[in-house]
């Protein structure tokens, strides 16, 4: 696998505090890499260092083998990125905005511009002033802006912020297309675990400025499956049910009205729990599987270092 982005013991300090502490990882061509962490973990700071917006105090970042400080122009030729919101010049039209970036990059043709406009689905409105665009349209314009020069690395900071579900799906499809069909290394940051699960091939987990782990999403899911499952019970009397379970040394995770969640490690355990409830004369109205517990895995890795939404 070709390494496109490489962070090598990167450290950033601001006002005496270490914001990013000795972070190293690699992003490969053809994958969507999720950069996961709670708010304030340092995701945006790391991305800004990758894009050359912030200086690096220690370590170095290379993009396609070019140091992004000493060989800035060479390194940046292969990069597209959006930090925070995709800002555009609202007094220019969509096309004029794209031309601004076309002029700063080599090898972008008019045909390519049309192609990216089509890819992001803006062909009907591209000659309108951006001030008349909706947020979603601006985001799509921003995306066209950063992929027009066929970058080898695409870095997106919280790209799904403010998007509706359809918009998120569209974006996800574009990212997966770029990575899997065109071989782009796509790095996406997010604090939403569920989103990462659908979008990414690999995730790096950042908390308090430290990279805790880098794992394939598959591995994460396996870890979650292998560990515990959350089972939601709906009963006629949850108070009695909870008492019955607590007598057997099983603590429910959450009680809400007539439902409660417990975590079980095996099918056998689940059968035992059900049996004991039925024996106690409680009506079992529903038993549902609450999905893989990635959050649990995350909290386990992060050591409770941050809250995941």
């Amino acid at each position: 696998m070709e390494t496109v982005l490489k962070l090598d013991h990167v450290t950033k300090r601001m006002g005496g505090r270490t914001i990013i502490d000795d972070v190293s990882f690699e992003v490969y061509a053809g994958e969507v890499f999720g950069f996961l962490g709670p708010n304030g973990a340092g995701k945006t700071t790391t991305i800004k260092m990758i894009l050359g917006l912030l200086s690096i105090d220690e370590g170095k970042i290379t993009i396609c083998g070019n140091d992004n400080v000493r060989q800035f122009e060479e390194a940046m030729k292969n990069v597209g990125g959006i930090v925070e919101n995709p800002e555009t010049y609202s007094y220019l039209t969509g096309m004029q905005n794209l031309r601004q970036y076309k002029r700063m990059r080599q090898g972008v043709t008019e045909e390519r511009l049309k192609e990216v406009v089509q890819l992001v689905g803006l062909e009907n409105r591209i000659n309108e002033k951006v001030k008349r665009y909706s947020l979603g349209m601006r985001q799509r314009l921003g995306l066209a802006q950063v992929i027009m020069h066929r970058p080898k690395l695409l870095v997106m900071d919280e790209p799904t912020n403010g998007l509706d579900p359809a918009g998120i799906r569209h974006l996800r499809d574009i990212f997966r297309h770029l990575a899997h069909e065109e071989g782009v290394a796509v790095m996406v940051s997010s604090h939403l675990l569920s989103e990462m699960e659908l979008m990414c091939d690999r995730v790096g987990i950042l908390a308090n400025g430290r990279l805790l782990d880098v794992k394939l999403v598959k591995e994460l899911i396996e870890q979650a499956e292998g560990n515990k499952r959350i089972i939601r019970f709906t009963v006629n009397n949850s108070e009695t049910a909870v008492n019955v379970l607590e007598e057997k040394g099983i603590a429910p995770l959450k009680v809400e009205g007539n439902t409660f969640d417990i975590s079980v490690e095996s099918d056998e355990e689940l059968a035992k729990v059900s049996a004991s409830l039925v024996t106690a004369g409680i009506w079992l109205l529903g038993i549902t599987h609450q999905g893989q517990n990635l959050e649990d895995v995350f909290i386990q890795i992060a050591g409770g270092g941050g809250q995941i939404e």
Partner: protein
Amino acid sequence: MSKFFNLIVNELVKILAKSSTKIMLAIIVLLAFFWNLAAFINDREMRKIDEEVIDYDYIFEVYKYSEEYESMYQFLKEIGVTVTSDWRYDAMQDITDELSGTLRDYPSQREAALEWYEKLKKPIGDNDPKGYLARRIEYINTLPGMDSDTKKAYAAILKFAMENDIPPTRHDSRFSNLLSLIDKKAELSLLESMPADIRDTKRITTLKNEIAISEYAIEKNITTYLTEVSDEFSPFYFQGFWFAFSESVNQITVISLLILIIAGSIVASEYSVGTIKFLIINPVKRWKILAAKYLSVLITGISILIIYYILNFLMATAFFGLGDIGAPLLKASDGVVTAGSPFLYVAFMYLLNSVSLLAMATFAFMISSLVRNAALAIGLGVFLMMTGQGVTFLLGSIFGMDWARYILFANTDINAILSQNTPFLGHTLGFALTVIAVYMIVFLLTAYDAFVRTDIK
């Protein structure tokens, strides 16, 4: 290189697309229009005074003149003089003034004076300027209270006017030029008679050059021309078109404000809307982006000045016509006169007045890049532009602080420096330009340092 050119194109596209730029262009058009309108109204008023219709009824009824003037107006009315620009009006005024002066100061010469009065009145009555001039030359020699040199000089110009068909009236620029020659020559001979150690050599040079230009214009029969008056360093003009066109240079202060707004917001606005991030992550070094922005400000500034120059030319043409367009710019040095193009001269004046603009735009640009706040950059720029020159002048003149000459604003008024109208001794153009250059380098380095090194949060 072509990439850098593209960066400048980017900046110019942004500047042009902003609605504030369109408003500025509208302001510039209005400014040129109203300036020329004002100049036109002023010109009309001046001409009205110059070519006033004589209201005899009013004169005879309301005013109680002395006998001589009463009969002068009677005579003018009889011979059909209706406007003050008629040569006969001036001539009658002259001889009547002289008569009443002689009667008052030299009563013993009453008879001779009255006799000459009638003699001079004759050709005026016949509307014969040549005959009048011929008699006047004779008459000058008899005038009491005038030294022989002046008499000689006066007789010479009258002779010249007679030979060249120049009407003896101040409304004719050649004749008024001839008259001014007498005064200037008299002043020159007085100055040259002073002892060498207190002789005002600067004034002598000025006078010599002015005399040379006047003689040149008379000789070549040039009625309308422009000239640099050395103590003002502004063009001297006789007619409306050139007044309106050349004095439009005074509105460059307003233009400066507009350019200051562009310079103060070009960096800061990228920060305020967040587009700076998208600018920086391109494969372009930061200093190139900054340099492209600065050059774009300069290009815009120069373009606005050129547009303003052309606009003023068009407006002045619309109001005054192109009648005077061929007027030359006369310059003299060591008594040698050269005729140049006043268009170039006005352009040069635009350039000189833009020095302060350049300095302030650079200053606002630096602040913009330093504090990333357009309002602060523009506000500070405007404030310093408005007060800076005044404050340094006060420091230099009232408080006698010589070091104040090193303050930027002591050097930005190039007109004042060229005319030596600054509170600092030996304040030369070279010194001023050096100080400005040093400040600009400091401003640009500061802007560079701030822009290139700062983290974009």
